[in-house]
C-alpha cells in the first residue's frame, strides 16, 4: 500500500470509531391500539368528511390517483383488500406511500390528526360500516 492509502485507511478507521461512538441499540415501543369502546364511527357521519378533505379532491383520489373516494362504493375495494389501512395507518410515516402524502397541495392536510386516526382505525376495526 502507498502512504496515501495508509493515511486514508487510518482516516476511515477514525470514521468507523466515530460511527461506533454514535451507535445506539434502541427499540420502538409496541404500537398502540386505539380504544374504540366509546367510538363507533360510520362512513356517512364521521369518516366521509375526513376523506373528502384529505383524499377525495381534484388531482388525487377523485379524478387522478387510483380509486374514486368521494363515495362508499368507490372506497370499498381498497377497504376490502386492506390497502386503505396499510396506506393510511400503518405506512403513514412514509413521505410518499403514506396517505395523505407529503406532496399533497398546500391547501390540503399532509397528515391526519390523532383524533382522525382514531376514528379511521375504529371504523376499520368495526368492519367499515356505511
Amino acid at each position, binding site marked *: 500500500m502507498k502512504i496515501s492509502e495508509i493515511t486514508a*485507511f487510518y482516516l476511515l478507521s477514525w470514521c468507523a470509531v466515530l460511527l461506533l461512538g454514535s*451507535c445506539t441499540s*434502541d*427499540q420502538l415501543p409496541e*404500537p398502540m391500539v386505539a380504544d374504540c369502546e366509546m367510538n363507533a364511527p360510520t362512513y356517512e357521519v364521521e369518516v366521509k368528511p375526513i376523506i373528502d378533505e384529505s383524499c377525495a379532491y381534484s388531482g388525487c383520489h377523485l379524478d387522478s390517483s387510483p380509486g374514486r373516494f368521494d363515495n362508499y362504493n368507490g372506497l370499498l375495494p381498497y377497504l376490502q383488500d386492506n390497502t386503505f389501512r396499510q396506506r393510511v395507518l*400503518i405506512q403513514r*410515516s412514509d413521505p410518499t406511500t403514506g396517505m395523505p402524502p407529503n406532496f399533497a397541495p398546500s391547501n390540503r392536510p399532509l397528515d391526519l390528526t390523532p383524533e382522525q386516526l382514531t376514528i379511521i382505525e375504529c371504523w376499520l376495526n368495526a368492519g367499515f360500516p356505511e
Partner: protein
Amino acid sequence: MTQNGTTTPLYLLVLAVLLGSISLEAQEQVYRIFKDSRVVNIHSPETLPKGRLDVRISHRFGDIAGDNGGFATFYGLETASDVSIGAEYGVSDALTVGLYRAKGAGVSVEGFPGLRQLLNGVGKLRLARQEENGGAPLSATLMGLISLSTQEKLEGAGNEASIASFPNFNHRMASHIQLILARKFSDGFSLQVSPGYTHRNLVPFEDKNGMFSVSTGGRIQVTRTFGLLADAVFPLIDSRTSGSGYFPAIGLGFEFETSGHIFQVNLTNATALMETDFIPYTTTDWTEGQFRLGFTISRLFNL
C-alpha cells in the same frame, strides 16, 4: 573476450531473465473481476481508478405480479419502490468514496416503514488484489455504508411506534460493513462471498439492532460487452429465518458495457437499494410475484 569470459555472463544473464520473468509473472494482478462496482443489489470488490468519477442512477419499480402488481400497475412500471442518484470517486486506486440520495423503501413484516429520505455515504478500500501464478488467490475489499435519514421528525401522540419519531438524532442512522472476497476463475466467470454486519440504531418493536449476513454473487461474461449477473443476501439472525415474513434479497440481471457507460437491467425481490435498507427489510417474496424490474446507469468521467 575469452570463451570462459563469454559463457559465464551469458549463463547468468539468461538465469536473471528467467528469474525476472518468473518474478514478474508472480506479480501479475487480475483486474476487473467484475465490470462494475455492484453485482445486482450488493457491492462487488471493484474500486475506481484514481481520479475517476462514477455517476450512478438506480431505479427499482413496483411488484411485477402479486397483490400490488399485474395490469393495474402495468406490472410495476407505474410505481417506484426506490430510486437512488449519486456518485463515487476514486481517491486512489485502492480507495473509493461516494455519496447517494435514496428514497428508502424497506418495511417491517408488520408493514411499518424503515428509514426514509436517505443520505448514504459509501467507502470502499481494496485490501488485496487477486494475482496469477501462485500469488494472492482472492481479491479482498472492505466496504462501509452509513445511511442518514433526512425525513422530518414526526411529533405528537400516535407516532411513538414510528421510526420517524426519531427520539434522538442517532436514531436517523444505520450502518453496514462487509468484507468482499472475490475470485475470477476464468475470463468468463467470477464469484464473490461477503460476510457483513448491519446495525440500525432504532428498530421496530421486538426487532434486533444488529445482524450478521452473508452474501454471494457471480458474473458470467457472455460476449465482450455483455454479462449475466446474480446475487443473494442471507441475514444470519433468528428473526429473519424462513417463515418469519422476511426473505433473502435475490437479484438476477444482465449488463451492457459501452465506452464509459455500464447499463444494468435486473429483476429482484428487494424493494430498496441500500444495504442498510434491503438487508433488514426485505419482506417481498419471489414466489408470490413480488419481484420487480430495476436498472442502473453508470457513467464514468475522468477528472
